[in-house]
């Protein structure tokens, strides 16, 4: 395969944006876990102790929300759910068993990727709003104790869904080995589109 045959899946700005999101998400997940269950409290050591973890977590979270907001703006058009996606989800058994021949043709993103996208849009929005309500010492004093109780619950639930989703995403990256052939095989619809005009 020579250089003429390369296709560009993501522009450099897309990649930078993705990795800023990824790094802040990992940091915010680790610091959040540290404060969620004592079994993970040792993770505060990565952030300079418990108090620093408490101070840094929300700021990293805001950077994540902004970074993901920009990413969502770039990617949302390609993440519309189609009938083929619904079919893909129905054949989930074939997906996990690597029986790709039974799956409908996939465009730029498959239904799993699209689902993760929308899970992230929803949970990050919820985390941002509920996080502001419990953000000490800046914003929490503005809100009633009753509201902070609802907010901590939403924050924990949304964080769980997001973290579980991202673990699946990271695993999928390890699971699926990708090249040009991979693009032809897994995203044929998109492959035809980007290779239009080349030989």
């Amino acid at each position, binding site marked *: 395969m020579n250089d003429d045959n390369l296709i560009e899946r993501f522009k450099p700005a897309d990649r930078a944006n993705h990795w800023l999101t990824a790094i802040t998400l990992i940091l915010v997940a680790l610091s959040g876990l540290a404060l969620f269950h004592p*079994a993970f409290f040792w993770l505060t050591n990565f952030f300079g102790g418990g*108090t620093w*973890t408490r101070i840094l977590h929300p700021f990293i979270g805001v950077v994540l929300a902004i970074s993901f907001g920009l990413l969502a703006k770039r990617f949302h058009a390609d993440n519309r759910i189609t009938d083929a996606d619904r079919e893909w989800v129905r054949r989930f058994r074939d997906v996990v068993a690597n029986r790709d*021949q039974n799956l409908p043709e996939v465009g730029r993103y498959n239904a799993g990727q699209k689902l993760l996208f929308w899970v992230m849009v929803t949970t990050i929005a919820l985390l941002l709003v509920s996080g502001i309500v419990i953000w000490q010492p800046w914003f929490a*004093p503005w809100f009633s104790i009753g509201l902070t109780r609802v907010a901590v619950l939403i924050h924990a639930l949304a964080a769980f869904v997001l973290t579980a989703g991202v673990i699946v995403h990271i*695993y999928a990256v390890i699971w699926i080995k990708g090249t040009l*052939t991979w693009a*032809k*095989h897994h995203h044929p619809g998109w492959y035809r589109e980007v290779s239009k005009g080349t030989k």
Partner: protein
Amino acid sequence: MALQSLDITSRSATTTPSPGVRQTQKVAKLIDISKCIGCKACQVACMEWNDLRDEIGTNHGVYDNPLDLTDKSWTVMRFSEVELEKGKLEWLIRKDGCMHCADPGCLKACPAPGAIVQYSNGIVDFHEEHCIGCGYCITGCPFNIPRLSKKDDKVYKCTLCSDRVSVGMEPACVKTCPTGALVFGSKEDMIQHAEERIVDLKSRGYNNAGLYDPPGVGGTHVMYVLQHADQPQIYNGLPKDPQISLLVELWKGVLKPIMSLGLGLVALTGFFHYMTVGPNEVKEDANESRHGR
């Protein structure tokens, strides 16, 4: 925030037993509202013993001063004027502060190991050097007691003078009370003393007099004798049936363990999927034959 360490019943964000070889007697402070004259000597004694001086505030036109608990005012007198019977004004004065719950919501909510401890004598104490300033205890407390300091972002509240109690003295507020409205001793004795007071109050026409030792939080180590125990709310909003909010229970009692386990399972599932089904690799020729074009 005394530093006894051998008589700890529970410790925040800790999943193993706390050092507890030394068993101490359960203590309680009894606040007899019918005897309180609102002199605020207890407020002064509290700031004296704990060596705290709150900011000089402004007069809000009411007796309550300061108007609310702060990181430096761990107890305040709350004055309520109520007229339960027409023409019979009652001036109810309640000394507010930490109730030292047997089932403390603050301790349950706290994510910092050892920042909140409960001694075997029942005192719930904050160890501010371990506090990370997240304010979860404020979310967990059913009585709205902990206050976050603007100076150091640590929370503070009444310690029930755990330092004095640990060496056999009564809390500073009790020591100073001129009317005997505050008494301190074993919880058992305090309940008995309260019962005698209630008999007296009933004989003087307070038919609903009773002890405030709310079972919803497992009982408290600060208790009130109320003239109108059927309506604790009239004492400046003392909750009728306080308990740790269901939302906090759900957060710390259910979601915390289940979701932590859940994340581990998700990661493990991935690992075993890779070990059994294996990676999804596309071979050049296989691709051509499958999606022939």
